[in-house]
């Protein structure tokens, strides 16, 4: 309805941003990147502010128009909990509106897509989802990421929302975070005392929660080299074709030793079937070293279904989700293998 009162801080550099985050951590500070989650969530709820802190139900959605937002029942979040586009530094769950927003719009250095020295890809955290969707390079070599952005929210959301925001927001169904995990990316976190690099799959810890420190900013997402015989794919299962939060999201990445196999490496990441996006850990053991034929793929898909831990919620039952993980993993492995085989 209407926004609460807050001050907006505008750092000129990443270091300045981190200093601001550290300085105001005690008062409640939030990072403003694309704002597609944060600004929507900051709007004062009219009704639910009167609802006593909830015990039984933890399912109230967050009233947002972005599919990067997800509401979950995995943990006891306060009703109408705020999301946060890049992340929340709010350790105090009682406090729902921050006193400061740190707007990153001047940090142009975080808005780029470039090759890394080893042939991988480095994407600045402020790169918009639309920029990723439009990049021929990403679509060619990191197809799953491009496909992750294809049906994310709407064109308006993709024009504002950022890759970093989608990851730090740490929603289980985040459509760009799932392929980021599937593609084995590393996240660069910049803090007052330096930078560190962490694997994407270890970053989220719970819905809306990550390992990021109060003074840290996610600055870059680093995707490893896409080998010659590799291919990836993502599919978002939902009830309509836009403006959706996935019922299930699956990303796969397959590296073949040569066209037709055998499989040198494989990663399957799953969205909306656990408290965070997860890596299907038992798939590599099933598939590596094998020719990815129908039977091998079916076995891998079954393994992926066994790895997920979905719940029943208003978007779908656990029963349905488990089956869909199997169906979609099988389909996407087939597609990724085809893509791996034809990549030259």
């Amino acid at each position: 309805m209407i926004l609460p009162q807050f001050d907006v801080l505008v750092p000129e550099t990443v270091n300045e941003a981190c200093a601001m985050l550290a300085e105001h951590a005690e008062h409640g500070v939030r990072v403003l990147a694309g704002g597609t989650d944060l600004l929507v969530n900051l709007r004062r709820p009219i009704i639910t502010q009167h609802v006593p802190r909830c015990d039984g139900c933890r399912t109230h959605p967050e009233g947002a128009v972005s599919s990067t937002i997800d509401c979950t029942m995995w943990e006891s979040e306060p009703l109408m909990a705020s999301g946060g586009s890049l992340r929340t530094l709010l350790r105090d769950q009682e406090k729902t509106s921050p006193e400061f927003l740190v707007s990153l719009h001047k940090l142009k250095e975080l808005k780029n897509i470039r090759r890394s020295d080893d042939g991988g890809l480095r994407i600045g955290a402020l790169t918009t989802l639309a920029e990723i969707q439009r990049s021929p390079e990403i679509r060619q070599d990191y197809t799953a990421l491009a496909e992750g952005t294809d049906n994310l929210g709407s064109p308006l959301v993709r024009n504002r929302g950022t890759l970093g925001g989608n990851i730090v927001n740490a929603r289980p169904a985040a459509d760009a975070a799932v392929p980021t995990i599937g593609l084995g990316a590393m996240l660069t976190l910049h803090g007052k005392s330096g930078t560190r690099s962490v694997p994407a799959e270890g970053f989220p810890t719970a819905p809306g929660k990550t390992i990021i420190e109060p003074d840290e900013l996610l600055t870059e997402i680093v995707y490893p080299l896409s080998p010659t015989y590799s291919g990836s794919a993502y599919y978002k299962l939902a009830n309509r074709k836009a403006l959706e939060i996935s019922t299930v999201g699956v990303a796969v990445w397959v590296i073949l030793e040569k066209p037709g196999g055998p499989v040198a490496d494989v990663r399957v990441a799953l969205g909306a079937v656990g408290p965070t996006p997860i890596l299907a850990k038992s798939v590599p053991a099933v598939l590596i070293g094998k020719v990815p034929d129908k039977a091998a793929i079916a076995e891998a898909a079954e393994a992926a279904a066994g790895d997920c831990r979905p719940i029943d919620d208003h978007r779908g039952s656990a029963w349905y989700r488990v089956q869909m993980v199997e169906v979609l993993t099988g389909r996407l492995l087939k597609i990724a293998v085809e893509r791996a085989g034809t990549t030259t």
Partner: protein
Amino acid sequence: MSDYKLLNTRAPRVDAVDKATGRAVYTDDLKRSGMLYAALLHSPLAHARILNIDTSRAQKLPGVKAVVTHHEAGIEPYGVSPARYDETIFCHDRVRYVGDEIAAVAAVDLDTALQAVSLIKVDFEELPLVLDGLTAMDEGQPQLHEMYEKNICAEVNWHFGDIEQGRKEADLIRTDRLTSKMQDAAFLEPQSVLAEVDSHGNLTMWSSTQAPHYVQRTLAMALKIPLHKVRVIKPAVGGGFGPKASCSTGELATCLLAMKTGKPVKLTFDREQVFLHSRARHQFFHTMTTGIKKDGTLSFLEHQCILDGGAYASFGIATVYYAGSLLGGPYRLKNMKYDGRRVVTNKPACGAQRGHGAVIARALFEVQLDRLAEELGMDPIELRLRNVMEAGETTCNELFVSSFGMREALEAVRDSATWRQKRSQAGRIRRNGKGIGAACGFFVSGAGYPIYRSQTYHCTVITKVDDVGGGVTVMSGAADIGQGSDTVLAMITAEELGLSLDDVKITSGDTALSVDLGAYSSRTTLMTGHACREAAQDVKRQILAAVGGRLGVPPETLDLRDGLVVSLAGDIDFSALREEYLKEHKGFRDLPSGPQLTFREASRIAFLELGSIVGTGKYKPPKLGGSFKGATVGTSPAFGCSAQIAEVNIDLETGEVTVDRITGAHDCGFAINMTQVEGQMQGSMMMGMGEALMEQVQYDQKGRIVNANLAEYKIPTSLDMPHLEAIVVESNEPHGPYGAKEVGEGAIMPVIPSILNAIYDATGVRIEELPITPERIIAALHAAKNALLDSK
């Protein structure tokens, strides 16, 4: 081709440019000097006793101008149906749903008003909940209202013809069920209200409403002020679909605050409040048993329905009747029994929504026809064609269809969608993921009776000629809520007076102008159209009489066409009139100079003769319907009918549904504006598709809506919409103006069943619970597979 200049064309809507450019003024755009902002305190609990309300902290907050509760508003009940006044402006003893209004605040700005609301302290004693409509009537369930024993708010028991005879005649009988979910109408513009009281105690309220007249009555009654001191004005409205047809607490509270403070007060609902206020589609639990003869002739329908209506009656009495009565057509059905019960539960109140009461009933009945056709080995369209009514017939529940293009509509969609080729073999279910399904629909063209018991005209129209000559102003209480009624009134007036649309000014949606029952039950084109035509003809008669008098020719030899006075009896000398007109306008440019007398001259000359020229028109339906209890609901001066074919593609592994194409045909009698008729049909297809595939208001165990926003309450996006083909059938309705009747709601009737039938064709499984989500399809496929394994 018709002989009309404007009618039956694709004339652009009169409000098109204003709406496309953002110039159109909606209620929330309005600002008044010194205006205050209102906020409402809603109940956080679905069922609780109110022990105490403490507003003292809110009262003390700087900037707060008034805080009102039941102490100020009183506790006299009001509602929609006089027989079911079950609401008070504010809750006083109990709250009955999450969102029930307890208090309202007016303050200098919205922030302050919202803050003040959060300072109101209410002590509750929680009461057990009734959330399930099916068990609400059971012994031992908590009672929501003293007046509704066993939580039954309304009950209908109808028996037309002879069911037992029908059973004897039937060769094949089957029983099926269908359950739906509560809906939200998802209009673009949330409800908005601005109210002010002048120094004479006149209350004016601008509101996003469908029914200014009903709202005026409710305001006067509930706020205890004389009717003539209340004026309701409807600015541009961004959609209604039913929920805006009754007076809301928001409207009442805002008026009360304006009366208390003496200042203009505005309230605009947040989207969450739209969901909480609801008054949208009920949840329906239908069971139908239908019998049929070997030749495909219907022999009887036995129908039970339970409607979950939420906490209050709203329009729900009409809903429970409509759910039964509108199955009387479009097929010949001699024997019909209907037992309907509407129950109250601790959820937001349901009311009217497009296709009022009849949509889910229609869906199940059309599914039954398909299943019966399959069992008989008959093509489902052929089965329908064997049963369709023709013009001049009366249904078993005494609905007379004076025009009826049902057969034509059904044949049109069958041929246009190339049904025979796509269906390949009659009755054979393909089950390969691609499917095609058909259904029909039937709907009123305006409710035959007002919601309150009265002999009132349903509408009046005043058309006034500009005293200076040249154009006319049409004054009407009719509510254009986006459906295009202003354009229809302008086209009718311009047609009758031989004017261009630019010379007809429409002022409407204002209770100070005329009585009009409002935009509901698909009534405006037929009813207000009649009144508008009559008013225009009245004006024409007066102008031609005056001009004929001056020219010394009989008025009946004159006509108005293309902005000119045309003589049907050879040339006439009008030079004296032109000279008189030119003399009045010395120095003006663009004066009439052609060889014929213009409307501009004629209308000015007529004014000089008669003074102000005002034409009036009025309409109320003739006496309609049967003499049985509840016969007033479902009866109408005319009935629309429609047919539709949906084509779908189902992913048999994920259950994802893609609707590939919808072909619809609707009999609107006569299309006043062809584009608008198609627009209503396309809008209906989209709304019905959403209801079939994705829409559902979802509640948690405490009765709170978990998806009270348009991110999580899903309606089709443009990417979901298939190719839509809208075929207009014109059967020339004898009771409609120029032969016109409804399209606004009837066109939604076949949408859900055509999709249900297509999904069956594609998958071989029947879904008995709406919406048809991918998960429900997969679950049904699994169940079918398991059943098959069990049987082996």
